[in-house]
């Protein structure tokens, strides 16, 4: 057991866990944030996507012991005081989800894309989102929602 200090959603958490526990389980079972999902455990489905120092990563493969002093953003930290992230609002407006289980991971991947590229093409979206699997097949709406959210962000001058 070790005490690992990780900044999660702008708050420092001291996580008492084996260093080889994947970040996913530290977030879900120890910190108690369950928006980050377990899907496959081998980094294939993207349901566990979080941001590590702003970059999208698969938390199911990332040992928490390697993250001392680093910053993690989960879906619970995506909205800010001003309200929902434009991606979240668009996801609601366009009724993207079906079962919804993969969607927090989808939104985290999309948020990382838009932070880098404010006017993504279809091909940019397909490349950035290729690591996120949706069993319900909501891909058409995901692509459209990313475009719409990008427009909203650009219009707001963010």
């Amino acid at each position, binding site marked *: 057991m070790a005490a690992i200090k990780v900044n999660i959603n702008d708050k420092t958490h001291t996580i008492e866990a084996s260093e080889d526990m994947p970040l996913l389980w530290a977030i879900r079972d*120890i910190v108690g944030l369950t928006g980050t999902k377990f899907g496959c455990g081998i980094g294939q489905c993207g349901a566990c996507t979080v941001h590590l120092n702003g970059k999208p990563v698969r938390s199911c493969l990332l040992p928490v012991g390697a993250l001392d002093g680093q910053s993690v953003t989960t879906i619970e930290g995506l909205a800010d005081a001003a309200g929902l992230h434009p991606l979240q609002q668009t996801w609601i407006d366009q009724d993207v989800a079906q079962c919804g289980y993969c969607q927090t991971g989808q939104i985290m991947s999309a948020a990382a894309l838009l932070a880098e590229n404010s006017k993504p093409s279809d091909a940019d979206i397909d490349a950035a989102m290729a690591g996120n699997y949706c069993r319900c097949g909501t891909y058409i709406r995901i692509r459209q929602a990313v475009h719409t959210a990008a427009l909203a962000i650009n219009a707001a001058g963010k």
Partner: protein
Amino acid sequence: MQNKIAKNSQLSRRNFIKISGLVGGGLMLGNPLQTLAASGEVSAGTLEHSELNAYVQIKPDGSILIYSGSPEMGQGIKTSLPMIVAEEMGAAWNDVVVEQTPEVDTEKYGRQSTGGSYTVFLNWNLMREMGASAREMLIGAAAEIMELPRTELKTEDSRVKHLYSNRSRTFAELATLAAKQPVPDKTTLTFREREDYRILGTSKSQVDSLEIVTGQGDYGIDTRVPDMLYGSYTKCPAVGGTLVSANLEDVKKMPGVVDAYIIKGNGDVRELLDGVGIVGTSTWAVFNARKALQIEWDESDASKDNWDEFVAFAKEQSNTGDAVLFETGELESAIDADNNSVISSFYEYPYLTHLCLEPMNCTADYRSGRSGNKDHLEVWLPTQSGPRFQTLAKNRYGLEAEQLTTHVKRMGGSFGRRTSGEYICEAIELSKLSGRPVKLTWSREDSIQHDFFREGGFCRVRGAITPEGKLAGWEEHTIGVKVGGKPSRFTGVRKNSFPLNTAANARGSLTTYAMDTPVGPWRAPFSNTHAFASQCFIDELAHAAGRDHLEFLLEMMGEPRWLKDQDIRAMNTGRASGVIKLAAEKAGWGKTMQKGHGLGLAFYFCHAAHVAEVAHVSVTDDNKVTVHRVTTAVDVGPIINMSGALNQVQGSIMDGYSAMAGQKITMRDGRIQETNLDQYPVLRIGAAPEVDVHFIQSDFSPTGLGEPALPPLAPAVANAMFRATGKRVRTMPLADLGYSV
């Protein structure tokens, strides 16, 4: 995306209501219209809310609580059923708050199960009654307060309004008095006319959308209760193996492990098989501890299944089988007639796993009764049927309904998977043994390898064509599985499936092969394989006859008629022809395609839905397949939630394509060979085709859309690939034929 709505008045309005009443009338209920106040259980006014019936409450802040009784798994039922209630009631959708029914009580709430795409159909009348009854009670209250005759009042936007003045009262103002109104006699209730709908047929975002996108979704796997342990359960990799011994002491030394147990099952794969249960302080602790686990299994009675042996058997038995299930007309004469030509093809489809993205899980808290009290079991349960859990709890554990607290959780996909009891029993056993609440989580590997699979199988189809190019005879011979000595529910030949339901001379036969690998319903069971074989073969016959597929298909439908009058589960050839023509027209059927491109058509009827799809597909010289667009026409009667309906069609097409492209489960010596997503590919966003959906909103009773848009996809794509390449596709997945997507 286009959503053209065609109105198709094949039935008069009066008949529509009559038919809806008739077909939905089989629902057995206690009395959901009864209220607490009217029943005398509590006096009105002592509650913070006003209950108008089992499904509807009005809160002091004006919000309207509508319960959803059917479990939500992504099919959108938690939004669509309350939309029906709100419509009849005259509620403004923005005022509506939806919650899952707080308990499982079929006397009070009706079915509380979902499956077979019949949930909308089976609840349509009940939901309308709940809404209409609430409306009449509100109007009754308004009539008293406003001193106006009921006939001069209507409901709209969460208000009762006077028809001839600007006077109105909000539902909130009327709620307390409304709850004291006599409950209307069900037979006196009337329902709104379609042209007056303000909610039904519009697009509403799912009621849980905000929770989903902020990570607050109410999935079973997210359950956290005080004092809870995390659990895993390890079973024999070959189903049916019994446990001889396990190194529990080594496992208990692993970090975070609280205890480990050898659990003896009852041999029923739907209840409890032998295994090792581990409980610990985190999911990872119990997953990690499994790495140290060594179990000796006795596999003498375990599955020895081999997919390759099944394939070899099927190829030997590919002609007419031993069990003729039915015969109509004179098939032999049609086959033997000198001038008729006869062709036949052999189709193959693999086993599939459900792959719900939320792995199987259940949280159970079993509290043994002390000092004379009875035992109590509380579960947090992702399931398609709460009542089925109650039956399991009674039969296996002797627990009556009052000893159970059941939280039915939103499911991260189900597709027919969450209908069995074993993941529930495993959680209960761990809770009983540890004396603590336990959240059991299956790994992805558990979820794939211990599934109730979509069974693989084979179908030989034979057809005879007259010299004029008309269908003269149709024969299907299926080689399917029997499990536990009985043919699977979803194998074989169904007389009511198209085209066996219309062909004049037809025969269906079945040969079964014994397999131990468990099978179960997988989105559009039976239909998802039968549509492939039958609807590909119609195209083969049309081609052999030198006919256009569309024209040949419409000729097979013949005159518009309902094959069994008033039976929503029977095909209606008029509705079938309607969707076939519409999909073909919208896709530009008959247009010239560039080299390597083709259009393929398929129709199917299942789950009371008529669906036609036209796929535009290209295939490169090195066998790279692209589905560019799927044009779909659907007749499921009036659409409840337009957004939800479109979502189900889009998703079913993607799902069908993903399965067709590369998914296959195989078994060797009883062991499932595929373990995780690296061996069972799922199509990603880049492969998603454009999907163009057209609804024919006919005046028949509304029916569900969770499944029926899936079966036509594979034959439409296969038929398009033939146009593009000249080569037939008779085997799924495409990867087995050397194609890539």
